[in-house]
């Protein structure tokens, strides 16, 4: 009996405390409101040419089609795979098919999913950037919805998600949202078009921000740069310091062309330029560039990149200069000055200056093409060196480039390079 009383004395207050914390967290993520689908207000869906054109433009800048289309599949029919730490998630069908797409949705239901990440299928996984889309204006969301309704309907059924427990259970998303999700006030950023595009539709912070181990964006990590989950690439910080070598015009041009004198879009950014940013109109491109260059400089953020433990750290820095002269200098110049319009400058380039070396290593290992865009229809390419240089040589030349042209302390070894092997498609 004494035991029971003791348990009661400890457990009951403990349970009450847990409940209080739970209630507090639940209230902080918006209470029950996000889980209540709105009634159809019966607002008609516009189908005039101007709204559809505007919706198409906005959907492009939001890069909706890229994620909601499987490789080789019909547009917006879903089924593209996203690799996460918890397994694979497949994007949904956004075409007007009533059963498999969103043809039966009302405008209000669509707006609710965009803003709160909850649809008639339940809470959505945060690979869908609803936290960013929450700031979109009603008019923009409605135009996107109208445009999606005009896309040919497809009865394509995307594969089921393959997730490990507890992520496989949709209820776990409520828990995740209690810990990480804060509902945003809609259209809070409308007064600054650049910020509206960067933070909202463009959802740049999805890749360019630092993340916590849970996959949530770090509190102080806004546009601070970080590894992109599942992709094997690092997205650089976006701020006044990082972009100091770009003028606003140059940056606006880079967003649409995919190339600039001191940088080229490769990896996930190549896709964003190819499918989305190249279609920016002048005004929006300039607004985004202006805003990005106004973001206050971040302190050097720890990217989470950890060098592999000793041993296996033979000294390789010595021959980096030789390898650079033999393999790189023909195009990138003997002082890393590059050749405008053809070969990117390495001195002070973003990829040589960022704390995480993985993008530089990936480019040296596998090379690649810049995306084709209207402003750069015939792109140049970087050859792969994975067959020509040993892992130790690649470590040495990366160290040389980063130390000499990027002012970064760099002590990669062959083992580090081997850990970065492998082309990641998706």
């Amino acid at each position, binding site marked *: 009996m004494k035991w029971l009383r003791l348990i009661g004395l400890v457990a009951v207050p403990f349970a009450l405390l847990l409940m209080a914390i739970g209630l507090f967290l639940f209230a902080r993520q918006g209470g029950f409101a996000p889980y209540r689908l709105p009634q159809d207000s019966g607002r008609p869906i516009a189908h005039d040419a101007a709204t559809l054109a505007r919706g198409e433009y906005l959907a492009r800048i939001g890069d909706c089609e890229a994620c909601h289309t499987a*490789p*080789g599949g019909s547009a917006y029919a879903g089924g593209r795979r996203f690799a996460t730490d918890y397994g694979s998630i497949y994007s949904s069908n956004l075409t007007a098919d009533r059963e498999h797409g969103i043809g039966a949705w009302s405008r209000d239901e669509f707006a609710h999913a965009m803003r709160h990440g909850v649809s008639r299928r339940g809470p959505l996984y945060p690979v869908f950037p609803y936290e960013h889309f929450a700031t979109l204006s009603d008019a923009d969301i409605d135009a996107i919805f109208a445009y999606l309704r005009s896309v040919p309907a497809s009865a394509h059924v995307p594969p089921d998600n393959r997730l490990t427990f507890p992520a496989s259970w949709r209820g776990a998303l409520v828990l995740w949202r209690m810990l990480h999700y804060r509902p945003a006030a809609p259209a809070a950023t409308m007064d600054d078009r650049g910020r509206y595009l960067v933070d909202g539709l463009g959802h740049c912070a999805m890749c360019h921000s630092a993340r916590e181990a849970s996959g949530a964006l770090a509190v102080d990590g806004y546009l601070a740069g970080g590894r992109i989950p599942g992709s094997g690439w690092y997205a650089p910080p976006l701020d006044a310091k990082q972009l100091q070598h770009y003028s606003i015009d140059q940056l606006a041009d880079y967003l649409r062309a995919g190339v600039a004198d001191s940088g080229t879009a490769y990896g996930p950014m*190549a*896709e964003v*330029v*190819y499918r989305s940013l190249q279609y920016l109109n002048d005004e929006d491109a300039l607004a985004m560039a202006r805003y990005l260059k106004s973001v206050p400089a971040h302190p050097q953020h720890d990217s989470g990149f950890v060098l592999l433990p000793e041993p296996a750290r033979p000294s390789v820095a010595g021959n980096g200069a030789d390898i650079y002269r033999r393999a790189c200098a023909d*195009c990138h110049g003997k002082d890393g000055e590059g050749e405008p319009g*053809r070969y990117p400058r390495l001195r002070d380039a973003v990829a040589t200056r960022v704390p995480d070396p993985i993008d530089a290593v990936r480019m040296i290992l*596998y*090379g*690649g*093409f810049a*995306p*084709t865009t209207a402003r750069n*229809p*015939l*792109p*140049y*390419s*970087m*050859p*792969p060196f994975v*067959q*020509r240089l040993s892992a130790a040589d690649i470590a040495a030349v990366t160290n040389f480039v980063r130390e000499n042209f990027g002012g970064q302390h760099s002590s990669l070894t062959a083992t580090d390079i081997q850990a970065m092997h492998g*082309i990641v*498609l998706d």
Partner: protein
Amino acid sequence: MRARIIVSTLLLATTPFAHAEATLDVGERLTACATCHGQRGEGVQGAEYSPHLAGKPAGYLFEQLRGFREGRRVSTSMTWYVRFADDAFLHRIADYYAALPPRTRSADAGASQLTDERRSKAQALVERGDATRGVLACNACHGANLAGLEPGIPALLGLPIDYVIAQFGAWREGIRHGAPPDCMRDIAERIPAEDIRAVAAYLSQQSNIDGLRPAPAGSFVPPRTCGSLPHAQEAK
């Protein structure tokens, strides 16, 4: 009159630019390709898994590039290079390699010896096919000299043995797809594995010493309607 002057001035102003654009050297943009396929698409000694590209029909090359981009052909590295390239650029790449002189040497001269028996078996398949299995002769479509047919059928000369075997495997497993009807998939399913090996070894020893280009479109009519052939397109 005034309009005509404006138009002709515009023409004068744009022509030199358009001309420079047309003759611009796409090759210097393709350093990534040269690593495995050779500086002029002739293939690389020691990287013999990768086929040569020079002198293959432009239509064929374009279809393959598009296939890698859209998943009808599977090669992680090829997809990596072409995934964000539009059709116009892929056409330029295909045209560039198609215009280069075809590779003349064989891929694996002496690398993989064939017994006389297997050699004659392979040669029979290449030249006469295998009627009992419904397998057409290679040269019925790829040309009597195996130099290919414009615009969609590649030459079979100078291809590495491993590359040829891998393609048959990919057709059989449904990893490589041609435009339907996919004749090569059908043929690959009908040939036993040991014959594929023999044919691949035989083909890898054939050279194109005269530098023959693919036969002009329509210069002979292949016996079957395949997706990669223009008369199949017309029949649709």
